[in-house]
């Protein structure tokens, strides 16, 4: 895509350097002259936003590590000290904690954008796979980072996740022991999590370099999904066109970021994590951070055994499978048309997929046995023991008092029956919603994407990027041609 370099060193020093370390040439070719499709919209700015997020997390994280104490006796106090005593420690920690949320928000937009415009398709499969690797590393980093403040949610959340890994047959238990470094989450766990939490962002940064390298081979995809045909007509140099566009998007993103940091720093966290970890007392409602909730919902959606595989293991398989399936998306999607702009059915199913993913997040945040909505008002029943000594449940009553009420029914029973009134709720459980949405999640990848490539009739695509832009500007321009799908367009 980038073609032959057009850089010409102007001074004696740059000519000397260019013959030895062509770093100026490299920078010019990759961030200044790099030909970029001229029709990229704001969804394409999230790559730059993510680079910004990674830099923010690394810089604030290095600072926090200067003040943090990785020990079960000192961690919680050291975090409180950062918040209260270290100059601007509150600011830097709030940026770091909310920065994780902002990072995931941006990465989800980035991933949905890739899925919508078919940016994972040939020749960009490796870019996509590297992106999924980065996403996995982000989740591992975020999980380990969340353990470090050593609050109640840190401790018990990490206990749940390590036990999940223990559910994997044969290898699960040894992995769990090696992860924890002891029989339970403790000093050994905290120290290795701290070490890895510091290491992994740099691994992410390394893979980001590969991600961008792989991107710069074919160049950017674009909203039409049509490949660049004429570099002169279809592209503009990265600088200033996209440096300015990305820069503007980063500034807008910083406004949202700053809102959370300064006005709602704890809105995305959990109150339980302000209580120091207590291994003897689990919080009533354990939930991961919001960005992991959809996977948590998929984990809990599996409440049934299939054959010899029990529900616990199936849940773990489904959860890891929901991320693992992303690796195969380039081959699961059989359509030759990249952008869903021109795929009428896939486009609608994609919108449902986004809704399902967000909905799974809500399922993950709620108690699976509570109700999304109730079928009707709560009713009363009387539990009692009949004359044969068998436990019985009365019919349902709408009222407690009155001739038709539960109280009247209970009074009619002999005292020895031990009659007790109970409330019966009936409604649509969060569990059922999460099962439906998790089902759709897998259907989308495993059935719809492979099938639609065969049965869907795509709409006409513009013949080139420049034509698509010209068409937008002058409605009188010739309508798009190219109705038949060409390989990977």
């Amino acid at each position: 895509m980038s073609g032959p370099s057009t850089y010409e060193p102007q001074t004696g020093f740059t000519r000397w350097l260019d013959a030895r370390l062509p770093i100026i040439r490299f920078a010019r070719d990759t961030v200044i002259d790099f030909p970029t499709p001229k029709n990229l919209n704001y969804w394409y700015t999230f790559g730059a936003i993510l680079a910004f997020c990674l830099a923010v997390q690394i810089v604030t994280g290095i600072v926090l590590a200067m003040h943090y104490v990785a020990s079960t006796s000192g961690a919680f106090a050291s975090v409180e000290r950062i918040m209260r005593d270290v100059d601007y420690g509150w600011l830097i920690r709030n940026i770091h904690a909310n920065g994780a949320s902002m990072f995931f928000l941006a990465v989800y937009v980035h991933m949905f954008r890739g899925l919508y415009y078919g940016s994972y398709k040939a020749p960009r499969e490796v870019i996509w796979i590297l992106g999924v690797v980065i996403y996995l590393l982000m989740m591992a980093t975020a999980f380990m980072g969340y353990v470090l403040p050593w609050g109640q949610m840190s401790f018990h959340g990490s206990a749940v996740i390590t036990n999940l890994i223990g559910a994997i047959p044969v290898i699960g238990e040894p992995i769990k022991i090696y992860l924890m470094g002891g029989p339970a989450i403790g000093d050994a766990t905290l120290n290795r999590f701290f070490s890895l939490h510091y290491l992994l962002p740099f691994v992410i940064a390394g893979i980001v370099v590969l991600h961008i390298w792989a991107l710069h081979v074919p160049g950017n995809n674009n909203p039409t999904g049509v490949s660049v045909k004429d570099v002169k007509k279809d592209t503009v140099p990265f600088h200033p066109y996209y440096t300015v566009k990305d820069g503007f998007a980063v500034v807008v993103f910083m406004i949202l970021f700053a809102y959370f940091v300064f006005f709602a720093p704890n809105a995305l966290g959990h109150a339980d994590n302000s209580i120091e970890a207590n291994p003897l007392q689990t919080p009533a409602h354990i939930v991961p951070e919001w960005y992991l909730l959809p996977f948590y919902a998929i984990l809990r959606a599996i409440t049934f055994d299939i054959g010899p595989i029990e529900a616990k293991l199936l849940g773990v398989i489904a959860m890891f499978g929901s991320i693992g399936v992303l690796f195969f998306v380039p081959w699961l999607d059989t359509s030759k048309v990249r952008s869903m702009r021109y795929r009428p059915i896939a486009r609608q199913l994609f919108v449902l997929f986004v809704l399902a993913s967000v909905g799974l997040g809500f399922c993950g945040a709620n108690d699976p046995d509570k109700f999304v909505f109730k079928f009707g008002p709560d009713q009363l029943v009387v539990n009692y023991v009949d004359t044969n000594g068998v436990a019985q449940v009365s019919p349902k009553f709408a009222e407690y008092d009155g001739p038709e009420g539960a109280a009247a029914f209970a009074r009619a029973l002999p005292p020895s029956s031990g009659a007790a009134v109970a409330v019966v709720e009936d409604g649509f459980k969060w569990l059922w919603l999460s099962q439906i949405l998790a089902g759709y999640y897998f259907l989308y990848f495993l059935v719809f994407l492979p099938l639609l490539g065969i049965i869907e009739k795509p709409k006409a695509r513009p013949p080139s990027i420049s034509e698509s832009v010209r068409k937008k500007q002058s409605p009188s321009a010739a309508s798009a041609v190219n109705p038949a799908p060409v390989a990977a367009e």
Partner: protein
Amino acid sequence: MSEHGSKAATASEAHAGETRRDFIHIAAATVAAGGVAAVAWPFVQQLGPAADTRAASSAEVDVTKIPEGSEIRVLIGGMPFFVRHRTQAEIDRARADDKLPLRDPASDESRLSKTPDGSYNPKILVTSGLCTHLGCVPVGPAQGSVGEFGGWYCPCHGSHYDTSGRIRKGPAPKNLAIPTYEYVSASMIKIAL
């Protein structure tokens, strides 16, 4: 991002357009520089001593607990201080040397603080515990070496301090520093960093 007049800058607009674009470049760069400075400030400030460190920067010492001829060593925020209960012979020796040509001239009395009744208590000498050469901690009576002048001896590079903590021999340039301290009562002193 914007210091560079690129092809776009000269693409269409004529003279008037260029000055406007120049203004945008300068304004954007200025805002960016302001933002960087505003962000850099907290990131530099956090390197300084934290509020709890600053709060723990003084200590009170009961000087009546120190046996005559001995000293105690106090650590405040990791900084060592010597509080020495001098014998009459040590006081006399320090006063006698006031008249000698010293490397860092100071009278013995100038190195004391007034007690609440307005007099000096020459028995108690309070000094910093850091040699003025390179910051080693000199040895004193408790460590079995007081140097040639009866005060302290720094084992690192051989500086000798007298019984008033003044430098008398060796590479150190200055007398042992006198910290900020005051008598809060006849028997208690408060040393602050």
